[in-house]
């Protein structure tokens, strides 16, 4: 948890310039110190994580207790003083305002740190003590922490977001291969004079390809750019203007 938190805080430093001002401990210090405060916090977390795993000294075990209990108090104070600020615990994923869930998570971490300190074990002892019950306890605590983390929902939302088809940059190669695999292409292929398109352009979610036909007219194909088997429409247009045949009546629209 400490390592994850440290990494996320450092990563948040690179994002939008105003974002840091809205998160966690940075909110409670003057603006000039916001970025150094986050970096100090991150560095402290790395140090504590390393100490927990490797050092076999009472100080190394009680320092995380101090850290987490201070963090719990800070979050409680943040909630009272700046109800709109996120806790910043995991960088800019933690933008949701501090609620009882974040405070409870911090309290649980404090309790776990106290237990670890009282038991006088370090990370290096863990392989020796490994057993089924230990694994089950660790899994249970991890599940409890996940339950208390509002960041998980935010992450799922971010992964699921997809820009609408009109605003996504879609390279034409895939549309061209979809065209060449469609029934409309097979139906019009005998009348085409060339295999490569003479013109292509895109409008919203449709991409158009124009091929010259042997009799001097042009065949235009429209390929939809979204979906698993997108629609392909075709029309034959003579050089002087009005389309003679709109071919989606004769050829079924490929789906």
């Amino acid at each position: 948890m400490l390592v994850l938190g440290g990494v996320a805080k450092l990563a948040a430093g690179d994002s939008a310039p105003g974002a840091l001002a809205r998160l966690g401990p940075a909110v409670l210090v003057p603006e000039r110190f916001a970025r150094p405060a986050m970096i100090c916090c991150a560095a402290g977390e790395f140090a504590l994580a390393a100490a927990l795993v490797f050092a076999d000294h009472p100080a190394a075990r009680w320092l995380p207790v101090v850290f987490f209990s201070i963090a719990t108090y800070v979050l409680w104070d943040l909630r009272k003083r700046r109800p709109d600020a996120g806790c910043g615990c995991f960088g800019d994923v933690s933008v949701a305002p501090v609620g009882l869930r974040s405070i409870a998570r911090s309290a649980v971490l404090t309790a776990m740190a106290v237990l670890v300190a009282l038991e006088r074990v370090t990370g290096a002892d863990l392989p020796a003590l490994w057993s089924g019950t230990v694994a089950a306890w660790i899994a249970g605590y991890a599940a409890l922490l996940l339950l208390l983390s509002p960041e998980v929902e935010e992450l799922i939302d971010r992964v699921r977001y997809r820009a609408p088809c009109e605003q996504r940059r879609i390279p034409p190669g895939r549309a061209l291969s979809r065209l060449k695999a469609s029934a409309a292409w097979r139906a019009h292929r005998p009348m085409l004079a060339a295999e490569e398109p003479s013109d292509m352009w895109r409008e919203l979610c449709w991409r158009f390809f124009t091929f010259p036909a042997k009799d001097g007219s042009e065949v235009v194909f429209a390929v939809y750019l979204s979906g698993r088997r997108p629609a392909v429409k075709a029309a034959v247009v003579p050089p002087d203007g009005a389309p003679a045949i709109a071919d989606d009546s004769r050829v079924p629209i490929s789906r």
Partner: protein
Amino acid sequence: MVFIPALWPTGINYRKVGEKPFILEEDFCPRTAHRHGNHTAPPLTACEAGNVGNATPYRAVDRRRMLAAAALGREVAPLEPAPGDVAPYGTVRGSIIDVSPHLIVVEDDAGEEHRLVIAPWATAWRGAPIAPAELPLRANVIIRALHGGTVADRVWADITRITGTIRSVSGNRDLTIELDCGPHRRPRSVVVPYRATGRIRVRHPQLEPGYLFDAIGMIDEGTTLALLPATSQPPYRANAVPPPPPAYRGVQPTISGTAVWGDFEEYGVAYPMLEPGDAGCEDAGVSCTGLPYLSLGSVLHVLNECDRRGNRLPIVACGCVAGRFCDRCLECGTSERGRIVELSTTAYVELGGELTKGCFNVRVGLG
């Protein structure tokens, strides 16, 4: 009164990028002056007549529209204002042959003479507001005309707009700024005279290489002078445009924002959101508003929200420089952020825009 749509060039000027066999470099004909509200369409110039025979039909703007409509089974709407729009103004563009307090005679690029009566309330601009009778002969003017192109309402002489990325700044009193105006226009060297440096510096706090610059000025004996800042300079560098906000709810049928004008020849709009492969422009597809992808030849319905004048205009150029700006227009209320379209000078004046103001609030839909 029947509205005759203006001619636009019969070819498109593409840039050749890499190996793309379907993008060609083609000549286009310079935009000629025309009148709206007149029942006779202007004759084809020699350039356009030659091109009609030579241009391969599938390259033209209107050919693409017709092919797209045929493929999707929809009607091709004519290039005229939508029902409900106030009719656009007429424009006359050319150089002054003769001017007097009540009459102005202008010769356009085709050699045709236009005589316009100067309205009593008409004003002119050449670097500063002046009386129309004081305009110099042989100045290049754009005239906003009423009553079928016979009454001059507003005259702008030798006006130009300089938009681009700053390459270098030099000078102590008069500043000389070298600008990179994008891949489609040549780089420009601009002089900011001492009397205008205060205004320009206030709105452009970072006059340093890499930042954006946008000013309106005039061409005086071959020198481009920047006199009025067009907008507040964006605080980010030209290559660090903020991304658009995510559109969770889906796309809207119309988009609101800012419309600006640019000094380019073709009649129509420059649109920022083009696929780089289609437009032959590596910088295309950058905007700070959520714009949908379109291409050269698509037709947009552009509505000036300040006085409800609207028109259907084709996309004729890549608006990669305009898309880097993320400013609002304050002409009538505060507009949404972002430059959606960059209109050509004539199209901008027709929709009621004031060239010295530089922008108007716009609503754009697919026409």
